[in-house]
């Protein structure tokens, strides 16, 4: 079913439609919030709160942007508030979480695994103002315009933040892997291109 039609049903109080919507987006939202907060428990709680807000604020949705942008915008606002509050409980490592929560999309190759681990570390160290646009762009695959809508920032600002975020990631990766020769600068850069 078309997302807009689904949303229309949700707006009319159709609970089954809302559950379908949740099924469509729950994994993406939990993953996004996890990438931003690096705490699975927080990510799940924020994702639940995101859907609660989607339910109660569904009447405020206007189809001027894709539904996904609107839902991700709510999730982003919640993640921001949570980061500002700084009341994060003890972080739950991914290692402590049962394997079935992991989609297992990354390679089990030991070399790649190390690289991914370094990248994860570098991403974690990135300031939120760069991390959020980079995650939305490179992990969730949103366009710069969609990210601008979500963050309520001009497209130029979003472009600059993505660019700076990637540059910082590159620098951190080079440092972690022992210089630029160990990890080509262009690799992250090319990957991030729209």
């Amino acid at each position, binding site marked *: 079913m078309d997302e807009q039609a689904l949303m229309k049903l949700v707006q009319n109080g159709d609970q089954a439609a809302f559950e379908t919507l*949740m099924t469509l987006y729950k994994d993406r939202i939990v993953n996004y919030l996890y990438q931003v907060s690096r705490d699975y428990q927080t990510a*799940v709680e924020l994702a*639940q709160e995101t859907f609660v807000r989607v339910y*109660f604020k569904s009447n405020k949705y206007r189809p001027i942007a894709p539904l996904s942008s609107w839902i991700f915008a709510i999730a982003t606002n919640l993640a921001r508030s949570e980061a500002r509050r700084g009341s994060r409980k003890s972080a739950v490592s*991914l290692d402590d979480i049962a394997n079935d929560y992991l989609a*297992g999309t990354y390679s089990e190759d030991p070399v790649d695994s190390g690289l991914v681990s370094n990248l994860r570390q570098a991403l974690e160290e990135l300031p939120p103002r760069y991390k959020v646009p980079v995650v939305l762009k490179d992990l969730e695959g949103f366009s710069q315009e969609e990210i601008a809508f979500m963050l309520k920032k001009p497209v130029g600002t979003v472009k600059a933040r993505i660019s700076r975020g990637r540059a910082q990631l590159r620098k951190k990766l080079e440092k972690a892997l022992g210089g630029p020769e160990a990890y080509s600068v262009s690799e992250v850069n090319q990957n991030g291109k729209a």
Partner: protein
Amino acid sequence: MEKLKILGNIERVKAPAGFEKQVLARIGQEAGKREKGRMLVILRTALAGAAALAVIAIGINVIHKHAGQTLPVETAGIESRAPDYGRYSVPERSGGQGYLPLLETVDYTDEIRGGSPGARTVYILEQVSEGQTSGIKY
């Protein structure tokens, strides 16, 4: 080429089992809270309105009482013209309670309109008709 997709290959997590149920439970709780909050707002507004009405009523009552005691029209200038009661001996009543004499200065100068400063003319109205007399009017 494999490394080009490295950012996209960062591990992804999924929502835990029973996620939807938890969300629906939270929605139920939230709806209850919102209803309660709405009722509280109505109650608070009603109480505030009642309190405001009570304050207005008390205010009006106080103003009326105050106005009844010292009406500005009646008291204007009386203090400045008040006689010095100390000059008079206040006779005591048999009960031992004193009383204040009410003194009023009466000026008849303006009572007769067009009166001249000289000798005043007194008109004596006497009946000249043949009817029954009604007495002389001064």
